[in-house]
């Protein structure tokens, strides 16, 4: 099953929910990977961050890489939920490595969220490897 470029909500099927959850995984100790969906919604963000909460349970600090390639600009409700969810883990979050293609708008989205939360340890990369490396450096 592939996630389509449409907004997913609470009416998502069990398979779709599993597929959404599978887009977050542990890369190594304290480092996680998140591959965003093309259309972020409050629902998908909750699924993502609930999964991240599960994976990072018990960790006092961690970092994650988020791949925003191909992601459309989220609407205000999704951005509000993003701020809310990142805020909850902010005190344990050491670094976020953001993978963006040439999309400067998504760069602005990520920066605005980070600034709004008061979270400044964020870096932008054109590849996942670079982003992972940046997170590793932050975790050392």
């Amino acid at each position, binding site marked *: 099953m592939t996630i389509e470029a449409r907004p997913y909500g609470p009416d998502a099927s069990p398979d779709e929910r599993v597929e959404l959850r599978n887009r977050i995984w542990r890369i190594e100790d304290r480092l996680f990977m998140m591959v965003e969906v093309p259309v972020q919604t409050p629902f998908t963000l909750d699924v993502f961050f609930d999964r991240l909460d599960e994976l990072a349970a018990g960790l006092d600090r961690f970092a994650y890489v988020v791949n925003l390639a191909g992601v459309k600009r989220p*609407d205000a409700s999704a951005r*509000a939920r993003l701020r809310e969810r990142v805020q909850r883990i902010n005190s344990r979050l050491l670094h976020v490595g953001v993978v963006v293609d040439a999309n400067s708008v998504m760069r602005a989205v990520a920066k605005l969220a980070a600034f709004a939360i008061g979270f400044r340890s964020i870096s932008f990369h054109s590849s996942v490897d670079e982003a992972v490396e940046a997170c590793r450096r932050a975790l050392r």
Partner: protein
Amino acid sequence: MPSDEVRLVERVLEHIAEIGTGKCSITDDSIAAEADPSVQQIFAGLLMLHEDLQYSQQRQTALLEELRDAVRARDEFLSVASHELRTPITTLTLQIDGLSRMVHDQLPNAVPDKMARRLDVTRRQVDRLAALVSTLIDVSRITSGRVQVARQLADLVEVIRVVAERFGEEALRSGSSLRFERPGPIWGNFDVSRVDQVLTNLVANAIRYGRGRPIVVGAASVGQTARFWVQDQGIGIAPEHQARIFQRYERAAPSTNYAGLGLGLWISRQLVEAMGGTISVRSEADTGSTFTVEIPRSG
């Protein structure tokens, strides 16, 4: 010719001014049409700022509406519940009165003390319940804007005398003397039942918080205004509480020591204002309070 930088600053300021009025002409297409990625980020940021403001306003409006719905539901419940409670209380009052009469008829000279006392306590508790329900009905009427003022030519002094007389026994039971400093007649167009209600509340409070000390009720005519007051020498109200005691559900005295819903003074203020008047308090903690009501003589 302005430089690109100056031109960009002007464009940004124009958009900020526009966002300040609740509009934004930036679109995803216009952002994409910008050649410089930094400029794209600036305009994307402005567009999102506008969207976030709009979203926040919508959320506030929705929350406010939810809050209003909740208040409406509460007021409706209050209204229905208080009216539903009134009927059985009226029946209960009639039954107790009937029972009392029956006992006195059957045992004209020998009603056992215990039975008389129990009947008396039961009657007083039912009266108390009826007064509470009546308070709730008043709240319901006031919040739904259904307070009507029915004026009639009356002597305010006579209205006060009736109330003072009604409370004489209760005041004595609490250890207070209740004195009405009676002036000459004060004629005017008054809503007698509302004036009675306000005064009843003020005198009841004076007895409740008066610590068994003397209570004085007075009245005067000042031009076209009629004034009456209730003065006690009780626990008083600290200055920091005086402003809020006329608010709904507000009380200055601790609810653990003194019964009440915190609605009496709020109802009084609403009624006095509906009659075109004012109510005020002068008080000192541990010294006592004087509540003064002023209403126009010709409504």
